């Protein structure tokens, strides 16, 4: 029966599939213009984080004669109390924020996913123990813990910052992934794969993970926002060491030093990082909206 034509899709294998995937993503994105907008925003932030600082000198030019100026043509968001351009600060500051957010997201997702997968897949005693730990972790309130931790550790670099936030943030993902794993486990196809003798690695990486991709991706984006908020918030509260162009520090200085609440001169200094956060939120919200469709081949193609 066999030497029938070697069917066409076998040659197409991964390359075409990948192409089809991206075509599908394109279709999903096109369906709602808002999603495109979201992607553009996120791409913009990513670009800003990677290349933004390159457009500016390491030490931003300051001007002691023009400190805390209101927005003008020269300085779209005005200047800070050192007379530096606020927009430039936001842009150069994005790297810290986004880098640590990326680290957080990575840790959250990798740690949370592996733990959730392991727990849901192994079940039994391991599951019980891990989930108790996760429960406990989830019970401990993050922000207060961070406040207390901030007195013990110095979050010197964005990587360290991201690390700590990541280690505090995996609980939710682990929970969600475990729940997903448990429910997928009951699906026929996982059982079939086990029956066929496929390796656990195959089952996890090829069968489970792709099905959970939207959840994971969504959680990753949520982790990114969460991390941005948490760290900016901590800097804002002033419990973390100061970094001159950090968004949170800008907020802190705008409020507690430049008097943004009192004079409109400093309003730009306050609003610029706020707007950056809002915009990032918006971008992420819009993209999360498309996540399910991107990873679901059915929704992708319709």
């Amino acid at each position, binding site marked *: 029966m066999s030497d029938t034509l070697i*069917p066409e899709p076998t040659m197409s*294998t991964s390359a075409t599939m990948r192409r089809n995937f991206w075509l599908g993503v394109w279709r999903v994105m096109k369906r709602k213009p808002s999603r495109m907008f979201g992607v553009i925003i996120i791409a913009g932030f990513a670009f800003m984080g990677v290349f933004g600082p390159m457009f500016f000198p390491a030490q931003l030019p300051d001007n002691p004669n023009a400190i805390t100026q209101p927005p003008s043509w020269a300085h779209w968001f005005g200047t800070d109390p050192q007379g530096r351009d606020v927009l430039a600060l936001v842009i150069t500051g994005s790297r810290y924020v986004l880098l640590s957010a990326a680290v957080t997201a990575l840790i959250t997702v990798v740690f949370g996913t592996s733990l959730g997968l392991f727990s849901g897949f192994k079940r039994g005693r391991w599951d019980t123990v891990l989930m108790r730990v996760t429960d406990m972790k989830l019970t401990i309130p993050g922000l207060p813990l961070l406040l207390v931790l901030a007195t013990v550790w110095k979050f010197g670099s964005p990587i360290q910052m991201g690390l700590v936030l990541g280690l505090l943030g995996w609980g939710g993902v682990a929970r969600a992934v475990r729940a997903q794993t448990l429910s997928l486990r009951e699906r026929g196809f996982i059982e079939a794969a*086990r029956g066929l003798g*496929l390796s656990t690695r*195959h089952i996890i990486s090829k069968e489970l993970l792709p099905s959970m991709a939207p959840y994971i991706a969504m959680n990753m984006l949520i982790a990114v926002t969460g991390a941005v908020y948490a760290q900016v918030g901590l800097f804002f509260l002033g419990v973390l060491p100061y970094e001159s162009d950090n968004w949170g520090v800008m907020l802190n200085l705008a409020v507690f030093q430049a008097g943004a609440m009192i004079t409109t001169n400093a309003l730009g200094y306050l609003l610029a990082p706020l707007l950056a956060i809002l915009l990032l939120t918006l971008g992420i919200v819009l993209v999360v909206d498309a996540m399910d469709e991107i990873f*679901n081949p059915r929704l992708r193609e319709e």
Partner: protein
Amino acid sequence: MITGTGITKTFKQRGNVLGHREVPALRGVDFEIAKGGSASFIGESGCGKTTLGRIIAGLETYDAGDIEIDGTPMSPLKHKHRQPHFRKIQMIHQDPYSALNPTRTIYQTLQAPLALRAGQTGRSKGWIDERAAEVLSLVGLDPGTVLSRYPHQLSGGMRQRVVIARALTVDPEMLVADEAVSMIDVSLRLGILALLKDLRERLGVSVLFITHDVATARYIGGDGELYVIYRGQVVERGPVDTIIADPVHPYTQSLLSAIPVLHGLELPGEEPVVPLESLAEGQSESGCLFAARCPFRGDGCTEERPLLRVTEGVPQEHACYYPQRRSVIARPMSEV
């Protein structure tokens, strides 16, 4: 040859610290399926058919008893060593929608187990592609159009065929078909059944057919054995046609009586048996499990549980103190 002796399974329904509920799903089931042969399990919803099927396919553990595959008992083996044996037994799920990974194309679905085989036997990638096309052709699908599809792009019948094709990739000795057609369009069901029958005949794959529809059991495994299961216990066991024609256990009789009569074509059986209603209540654990619902219950039925055995004048094994033939099934008008 696959045999099981005294398979017992009790589910512990998760409670909390202070205890849990026990659900006895199987109570010492014996079975035997010859190479290339067939067997059918029938019974009401919740009687334990699926559980038994999953145990046979190695997807579920059991509390007592043992399964022997080609003479090798499974219990003493470690999980890792059992696996190659159980791989010879492949399960066809009831629901072809969930049995295929929606994120993987049919090619990917078939390729994974084939790649495993290829790796073990040192075959080339070309062989994988060839074999993928081959198994699809075996189940009557056109590889050219199907391979690159995602499951959602196929109809229910095609999906079920893909599921069967996937099972065939590992050259199984037995297929466990759990209600394999109940979610498929009526007009297509017979196609799948025919395919299974065909595979049995051509490839010598034995088929274990799990269903609540006796007629389909007859279609696939007319020459095999029928196991009637009630609340985890086999209450009647024998050749399919014998049991259909001459059921002796009141539960089997109720099941057969319940089959709708095609009024234009058939005449109803003369002595239909309707069980006394009280399925949910009074699930007493003592005596005959069916006693509470049995219209013919007699002395002793509620005291000691009847075990599967052969009695005089009854060709098939049964677990009833008062076995009696009754004409319950509808007969075609043409025969009358």
